[in-house]
């Protein structure tokens, strides 16, 4: 083990499977890098895969050269060869756990992804006991690290910095507003079974049939797997072609347009380690209706209509209530804005540095 002496400056090097734009972990890593550099702790960013637009920010992890005083911070979110490489390192390790979705959600729809997630969980099991510190986006994630034997954990939320989102695409927003005839539902997230798009479609079908025949459901997010194919068939079977719109991955400006034009953000995910989009929605002044699962409950706090179960009629009735009741809507929007402040970058930076202070003391 490389033991740092008082003469060795402490440097925190970040490692992650993939550094990509339009990705919560990628944005989090870059924001964390700025905080570490400002605090005089900045090392490098090393990744297994680096998007070409971000190559100036990071290098391949094979290029890492150890020095005394190095601390390695690994962003755990999926399995990859880098996870095994980390397990073989002797430097002090900080785990930043962003949650690894249970592979069962993917085994049928995207078996390859399921295998990577299983690999990620196996790697996490090995890394957690030997980490000096475990950072977690939520208490839900921290509890998992605790169960795996991580000796010390701290909750440090994902960095959410609206100043990096870019300009709103006003043309896209105006188009959405011009074509609106009823309540517009919105959900943002990769089309994957753990996010339960099928439950959204089913609840939306009840809402259209019983409450609002002109409602639309916008599902924004990249597409993977056979799950999308099944959703397409579900939409057709329920006669919702044209009313349920899968946008695929969109630019930040178009994403902003969807937040700005929608009436209610609905999240029925079965498994989330944090769920950044609900905070984005709150920032845009959208009221949130969410199923109380995993980390969603603590992320939304008291700023959303939280559903204990997601029977389609109940979800539909909740959305209708939020859309119709101006006082409720105003209260949710105002509470949402306070919730956004709770996750401000400055506050998250202070929490991060507070957690890392334990390392500084040890060094």
């Amino acid at each position, binding site marked *: 083990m490389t033991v740092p002496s008082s003469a060795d400056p402490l440097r925190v090097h970040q490692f992650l499977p993939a550094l990509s734009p339009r990705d919560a972990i990628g944005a989090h890593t870059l924001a964390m890098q700025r905080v570490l550099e400002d605090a005089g702790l900045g090392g490098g960013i090393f990744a297994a895969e680096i998007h070409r637009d971000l190559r100036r920010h990071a290098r391949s992890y094979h290029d890492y050269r150890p020095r005394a005083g190095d601390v390695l911070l690994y962003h755990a979110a999926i399995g990859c060869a880098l996870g095994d490489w980390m397990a073989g390192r002797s430097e002090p390790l900080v785990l930043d756990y962003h949650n690894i979705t249970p592979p069962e959600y993917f085994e049928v*729809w995207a078996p390859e992804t399921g295998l990577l997630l299983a690999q990620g969980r196996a790697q996490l099991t090995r890394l957690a006991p030997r980490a000096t510190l475990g950072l977690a986006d939520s208490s839900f994630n921290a509890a998992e690290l605790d169960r795996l034997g991580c000796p010390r954990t701290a909750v440090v939320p994902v960095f959410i910095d609206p100043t990096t989102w870019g300009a709103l695409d006003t043309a896209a927003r105006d188009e959405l507003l011009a074509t609106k005839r009823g309540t517009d539902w919105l959900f943002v997230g990769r089309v994957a079974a753990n996010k339960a798009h099928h439950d959204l479609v089913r609840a939306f079908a009840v809402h259209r049939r019983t409450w609002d025949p002109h409602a639309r459901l916008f599902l924004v997010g990249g597409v993977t797997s056979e799950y999308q194919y099944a959703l397409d068939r579900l939409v057709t079977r329920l006669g919702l072609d044209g009313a349920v719109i899968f946008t695929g991955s969109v630019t930040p400006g178009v994403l902003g347009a969807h937040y700005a034009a929608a009436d209610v953000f609905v999240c029925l995910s079965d498994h989330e380690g944090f769920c950044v989009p609900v905070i984005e929605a709150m920032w845009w002044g959208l009221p949130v209706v969410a199923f109380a699962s995993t980390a969603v409950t603590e992320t939304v706090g008291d700023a959303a209509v939280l559903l204990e179960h997601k029977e389609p009629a109940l979800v539909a009735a909740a959305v209708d209530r939020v859309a119709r009741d101006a006082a409720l809507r105003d209260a949710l929007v105002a509470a949402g804005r306070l919730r956004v402040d709770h996750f401000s970058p400055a506050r998250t930076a202070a929490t991060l540095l507070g957690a890392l202070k334990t390392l500084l003391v040890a060094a």
Partner: protein
Amino acid sequence: MHDEVAPDRPDSRALMAEIERDVRERRRTGDLDPDFERELDVVFAEVAPPGAFGGGFDTVVDQAARHAVVDYDVPIAGRRPLRMVKRAVKLLTAWYMIYVGRQLVAFASTTLRALRILGGRVDALEARSPATDPRVAATFAPVGDDLDATPFAGAVTQALQASAVRGGRVLHADCGDGALLVALKGAGIDVYGVDPRSDAAARADALGIEVRREGALDHLRSVPAGALAAVVLSGCVDRLTLGDQIELLDLASSALVSGGVLALIGRDPGAWSRAMAPVASDLAAGRPLHSSTWAHLLSSRPFTGVRVHDAPVSVPDAVAASDDPAVRALAAAVFPPPAFAVIALRR
């Protein structure tokens, strides 16, 4: 940064109650089409691939077998120059792809064969287990009538009032026609029930009680940890197999807030076996546990203050009037309490 102060937050419990009332009212008036709701329950399962919703061992193995077949016919669609290149690569590498592919298929088919042999052995084991053998399950006829849980409403209410928990929802599973929930609601307690039988749930609906058409185990698996002030379990506790009874206990424990109340309302095993036809009781997949067994299980979990409440016993007048200790002892042996409630507090 947002400087405004949030107006008064809505009372989330009252809001959810209003939303649920809206749903119930629309069901009652026919605005919500029950056929459509039923269709929604099955339509996604129909368009999803086999195994997406369980589907059993054989379904998933069949799906694996489909994936085990390597497709050598690589698609070469594209614009003309690119298509030509793809076609050339395909032809030039065909021998290699087939060579590697055959090894993969051999490995996959051997693994699948091993899985099917293993499946057959598990089937044979299950056939020897009364809890899982469908032939035994088909023979078993459960007791038709529900256990009347209302005699224990007072004990549950008292336990809730004595606990440190204020507010919070109370779940009753299986709630049957909702009679206990009506009694608890009358005491000002926020209640809801679950019951998988639509006819029973419909009767509870008619009483203005929120009831979800779901089994106790399925429902408790979806309840977030610490979400409930109290859990009352009846019916299911007498019907489930021992493994499921213990899982039910653990799920209820997880769903309860610290200080919350768990009430297990069950039939006395002796009374149960007397009420059952011999064939049905002998072949039942699950059977009631004694109150002392539930108390033992609770004391080995994070519960405290375990108390057993017996239901009133009806004995012949002559026996009831007797002061003779021997007669009373004999009566206790011959006429045990037909039901009991074991009540405990979550630590």
